[in-house]
């Protein structure tokens, strides 16, 4: 898929990841895009090398206790793509607040 396929929704999702919303339901909450759209988009972006993903350590999840989460992160290509998207969709930058905390819990 070329960059021509970068839709507004995809850009919003990228932006969310860049702003520190690193896993599925976080992204869904902040963007308001339904899960049936967010997850395929995340997976597609990952397939094309704009995102990488990592499962959280099971021990952390167990201590909470909850199912382990899958964290997403922008790659260099992903950041470039986002910059391009911001140029195209001017309002994008103002859409989401930056997350304050260092979002990814320490990885053992």
């Amino acid at each position, binding site marked *: 898929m070329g960059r021509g396929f970068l839709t507004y929704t995809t850009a919003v999702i990228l932006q969310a990841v860049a702003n520190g919303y690193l*896993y*599925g339901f976080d992204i*869904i909450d902040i963007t308001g895009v339904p*899960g*049936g*759209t967010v*997850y395929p988009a995340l997976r597609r972006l990952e397939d094309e090398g704009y995102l990488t993903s990592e499962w959280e350590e099971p021990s952390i999840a167990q201590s909470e206790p*909850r199912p*382990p989460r*899958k964290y997403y992160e922008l790659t260099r290509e992903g950041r470039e793509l986002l910059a391009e998207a911001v140029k195209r969709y001017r309002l994008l930058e103002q859409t989401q607040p930056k997350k304050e905390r260092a979002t990814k819990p320490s990885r053992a």
Partner: protein
Amino acid sequence: MSPLSRYKRLFRRPHLRLIALFGVIVPRRLRANWRQEWEAELRHREELLAQWERLDWRSKLDLLRRSTSAFWDALCLQPKRLEDEVFQDLRFGARMLLKNKGAAAVAALTLALGIGANTAIFSVIYGVLLKSLPFPEADRLLVLNEASKTTPVMSVSYPNLRDWQRQQTVFENITVYLPDNMVLTGAGEPERIIGPFVTANFFVTLGAHPSLGRAFTEEEDKLGAERVVILSHRAWQRHFNGDPHLIGQTIQLNGASHTVVGVTAADFDFYGRRNPNNDLFLPMGQKAGQDFRSDRGVHPGIYAIGRLRPGVTIEQARDEMKALAARPGREYPKENADHTIELNPLFDDYVGDIQRPLWIIQAAVGLVLLIACANVANLSLARAASRRREIAVRMALGAGRSRVVRQLLTESLLLAAAGGALGTLLAVWGVHLLVKLNPDGLPRLDDVAVDWRVLGFTLLLHGLFALLALFLGAVGIYGVMAYTVTQRTQEIGIRLALGAQTGDVLKLVVRQGLALVLVGIAIGLAGAFALTRLIASLLFMVSATDAVTFISLPLLLAAVALLACYLPARRATNVDPLAAIRRE
């Protein structure tokens, strides 16, 4: 855990159950991760909602709604299946076939010939024998003939027929046609144009209405009525360029003006859609000559077609008509002594005696397909032998037996598909050719075409055949044969080492090969003997057991087989005994 609590557990968090369910359609290798990600998502929702103390039915519905999102997500993952085993197998199979272009092409072509021939012939059989006539409830249409001891099929005497029409109770209608011809003038060159006189109920009886204009009225069928004519679609196109304003105009037949009242439909099929003997239809009342109307001894070539009343069987009709026929015999013994009536389905009259030969041809091409399958099995067998190493490596790397079989089978399937596609092309061409050649005026051939349902059926059937043969070739015999081949090399080496002469080894291999051939020929002869009995009834000047054929052909076969055994045997004797033994 009691069953009840388990039951409750199952329904406490239906949204999580849904995720598990939807996961089934996710490609297997992604499934675990997929379920985990979605579970995390939904449990998080659950927690949030619980924090707001709003885990009521509304929020539960919301959870359910969110879990259906997972379904769309699972659908989005379907293209990933392309990386699944099946597709890996397909890609690999295609690569293997391409690597061995020659063998693959021969195998596909062999299959294609078999499938093509079968589909072509079966299309003809379907169009000629299996498809019912293009009239509504065509099985109720019967042909009526008079018959006597000396003349088994006789055209009907007109006064007799009139009696039948009045007295019978089994037919809705009986119509009559009497072939004739006219000279058409005033439409280009004068031309002979052929077509029958028919009674007014002709089109009603068949259940086919002219597509332009109308059928004849009873008035027009009376003696001395105004002259009218109905043209066939073919004649209308040919002589009048399909002029839509022809209805109501007059044309000149035998120098007399006839008003055109109708044109038959393009698909009106009276003994063939484009039968030149049915280019026009005239009312019986216009037929010149009086003697045939009154003289019971005259059989002017009138044929009768009746449409049975609903629910009347052909046997009931036969009984009644034979009883009726006996009456003119009593009343007019001079003309009608021993006359009776024969009733036969119109369908049988259309197709004539072609049924048996067609089925025999079908059986023959069916055998051709079987032979083709056997050939392909042999080919893949030969290839399998050379792929022993590859399969061994796969097994060593952990492929299970079923996995290897599945992969070989996928390859066979590809080959069968290629053969099928090519066969379809051949079938379409074959049918075109057959229709063009129209061997021996095969009836109803105008409408024969490759029927897609027929094609589907043949492909399915023969796909199964082919697959079976391929499977046997690729997997079953492969093991046995490859094993014996290597075994033999060694055995021959030992024999040679122990002092066997080349001649001895040759004799051994050839003798064993020939034993198989002889058994084959014996079975073949028995089969041929039976089959030729059947075919003999259809062939002219060939006796069922033609001595020359039955002796020379097996001899020829034996000679070929001898050569086929001799060549490998020669190679076997060239084995270096030491090398052969060392291979242990």
